[in-house]
């Protein structure tokens, strides 16, 4: 297959970037989008040009390293799935494909398509955990958890931490990411002791990183490669309201 590409090139965080045109002829239809970029890079290299920097690691949709906006959509048009799970047979022969990094103020560009998502790590560091010292855990089956709750918790826990939710959101909100972690832990009895503190700290950290607020456009849910439901944002709001009330009541 043959494609025309327009790819975001940016030297570093301080330089201005721009879309640059490339031709990508003779691409196998079974190749993934990232493999197409590999082929383009190999050709650029042999021509003596600098290859396009882009991030990927597992290339099977689970590590969350991919951070590409393809034709204006986070992770491209084949939802649900990360950009590494996007295959060229999904495009028309001769199509122009525009590849940019995720566009979020809190994810500054490092180079070309590579961005800095450490803001998401800092939200988890603010409280996205259960304090359980190695060695002090009770016998695993001493805490029965209804299957429904465990399954629901797993649905939230499936988040791959890619940040596509924030990239797709018109407000650059990371609410879906934060909601997924808060819900994963709040749905389990083990998460109960730190439930109040967790949600308040994580929401504060999210705000401090400069992410916007949720106005229920559901773009996040539409692009999420892990199919995290936006209903978890409603849960986050409930958790946050309850926690704030408890706090203001001095509990």
């Amino acid at each position, binding site marked *: 297959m043959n494609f025309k590409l327009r790819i975001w090139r940016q030297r570093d965080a301080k330089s201005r970037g721009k879309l640059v045109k490339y031709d990508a002829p003779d691409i196998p239809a079974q190749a993934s989008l990232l493999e197409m970029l590999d082929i383009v890079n190999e050709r650029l290299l042999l021509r003596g040009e600098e290859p396009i920097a882009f991030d990927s690691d597992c290339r099977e949709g689970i590590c969350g390293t991919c951070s590409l906006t393809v034709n204006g959509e986070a992770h491209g048009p084949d939802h649900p799935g990360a950009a590494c799970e996007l295959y060229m047979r999904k495009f028309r022969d001769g199509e122009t494909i525009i590849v940019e990094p995720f566009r979020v103020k809190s994810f500054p560009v490092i180079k070309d398509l590579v961005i800095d*998502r450490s803001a998401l790590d800092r939200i988890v560091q603010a409280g996205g955990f259960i304090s359980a010292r190695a060695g002090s855990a009770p016998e695993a089956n001493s805490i029965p*958890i209804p299957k429904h709750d465990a399954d629901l918790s797993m649905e939230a826990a499936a988040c791959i931490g890619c940040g596509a939710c924030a990239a797709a959101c018109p407000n650059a909100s990371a609410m879906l990411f934060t909601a997924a972690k808060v819900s994963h832990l709040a749905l389990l009895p*083990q998460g109960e002791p730190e439930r109040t503190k967790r949600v308040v700290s994580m929401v504060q950290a999210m705000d401090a990183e400069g992410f916007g607020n949720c106005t229920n456009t559901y773009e996040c849910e539409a692009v999420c490669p892990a199919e995290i439901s936006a209903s978890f944002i409603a849960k986050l709001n409930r958790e946050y309201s309850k926690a704030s009330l408890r706090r203001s009541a001095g509990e």
Partner: protein
Amino acid sequence: MIGNFDARTPSGPLDRKWTSHKDHSRLVSPNNRRKFEVIVVGSGLAGGSAAATLGELGYRAKCFCYQDSARRAHSIAAQGGINAAKNYQNDGDSVYRLFYDTIKGGDFRSREANVYRLAEVSSNIIDQCVAQGVPFAREYGGLLANRSFGGAQVSRTFYARGQTGQQLLLGCYQALCRQIAAGTVQMFPQTEMLDVVLVDGHAKGIVTRNLRTGKIDNVAADAIVLATGGYGNVFYLSTNARGCNVTATYRAYKKGALFANPCFTQIHPTCIPHSGDYQSKLTLMSESLRNDGRVWVPKQKEDAKKPPNEIPESDRDYYLERKYPSYGNLAPRDISSRAAKEVCDEGRGVGPGGRGVYLDFADAIKRLGEETIRERYGNLFEVYQKITGENAYQVPMRIYPAVHYTMGGLWVDYNLMSNIPGLFVIGEANFSDHGANRLGASALMQGLADGYFILPYTLPNYLAGQMGKRPSNDHAEFKKAERDIRAKIDNLLKINGKRSLDSIHRELGTLLWDKCGMARNKNGLEEALRKIPDLRERFWSRDCGIRVPGDGEDFNQSLERAGRVADFLEFAELMCLDALARDESCGAHFRDEHQTSEGEALRDDENFADVFAWEFQGNPATAGPKLHREPLHFETVHLTQRSYK
């Protein structure tokens, strides 16, 4: 040789060794722990759990990873599950049985004491993960569910859908985040370790490169823990992530750490078949699929090109069920992989190029309904459809073996310390627990066992004697290591040849897959050993070598990869040398010359019941590595011909 080549296996009965070892190990008191700095390289299940636990204990830990976040380490991609001898199914499981299955699965090429300890702590891992909020699958009554895995006749595998590795890693990433917030662990993402620094014969620091800025740094510490995973990417195509590499362990080897059993590489039987040269990686379909899927090929090679639904039941060969009636489709990985290769070699393989076998769910769907199958494996079926465009609920999956895991790694003693004092190696990066073949769902178990429950007991035993011995990072040894690293980077940038890095790496991979893959023989290995130095020479040559654009003072992905491929090109030789020296078949190491009349691996316990540990002797062109052998002592188990019939 630097340090000590002594396994330090405790004496006493097998089931008392670990307890008594812990009882007699030295401790570091809580007040003194903050005086020690420990470097952990890698943030996967082993490194992440180790760094978090050491931080929690009060040590000051520094954790390094090449990914942009600790949560992206490749443990995240493990699908199927984690073994533990909980016996929740009341089906006869026990610590002894998990130990026995693991040592037998490894074809009797691992240490009894290490494997027994692994089985012993397996239950604590499940407790710990549940306490952290890992959402394992549960039954309707609210208790934990289990599934079966290859190489066992009990159901002892805990799982979280097809994303067990992800959930366990997030559990340990969250524990790590808690320590980062508490200030006990300092995290260095996008930072690659390029060398180990020895001071007075002890590992006391590392040289790193910040991948984002290109800055080279020297970091001193009281002890170093390598948790840098396996070297499957030496084959170019594998199920590993693109970034997985041998650099940390190989450079430690070049500093004097022994590399053990490098030829023990696991080929996983159930991966999506290779489809073309452009391909950058292979995708695993979890072994758990073999619980419900049936593996077959046509009986006649003439039928291999027919669509599967046109091949009647009577013309299908369910070869695993036929050859191994008691384990059937759940035969261990090495055996299943070789069986697939055999039927494809006979011309009965299916799909493009004839390198594939069917994994068929039709019977399971008939028996359990599509909904149940979707619940168990839904995400795997989706992945399969994304990649191949086929719906496996309607047509059988096509699978073929692919490189997946490496049992070999740096040699360690019972304390998980290499021969270099102060250099500890955990998880897939060490060689210790899986012998010549790892059983499914045991990698996650080993990574977390090492990080949560073994290293935190064995590291203090070393540290207790090291108070106040941490050198400054401007010690001459650091300066020298830094100079060497800078020179190496400059050399890579100076080649300025005409070839792309991937093309040379692919060439190496193809050579290894052919000559040192699922089956090996003397001639093939000798051929590989002739060709690898030639390939290496071409890599470095000005005329036909690789081209690395840009400079070292910047974010430069080509440069990162070039350094890793340069190490693979040296390491590949060590792997083939080991495969040639091990003149027997065992587990995943199958030498054509040594097989039973039924085509199974034929061990030679008299001559090869040893660990092969290789010592670097300088330039491979002038001095080959030196072999040290550690005899394996079996006090409890009886060495038998592995039979899964």
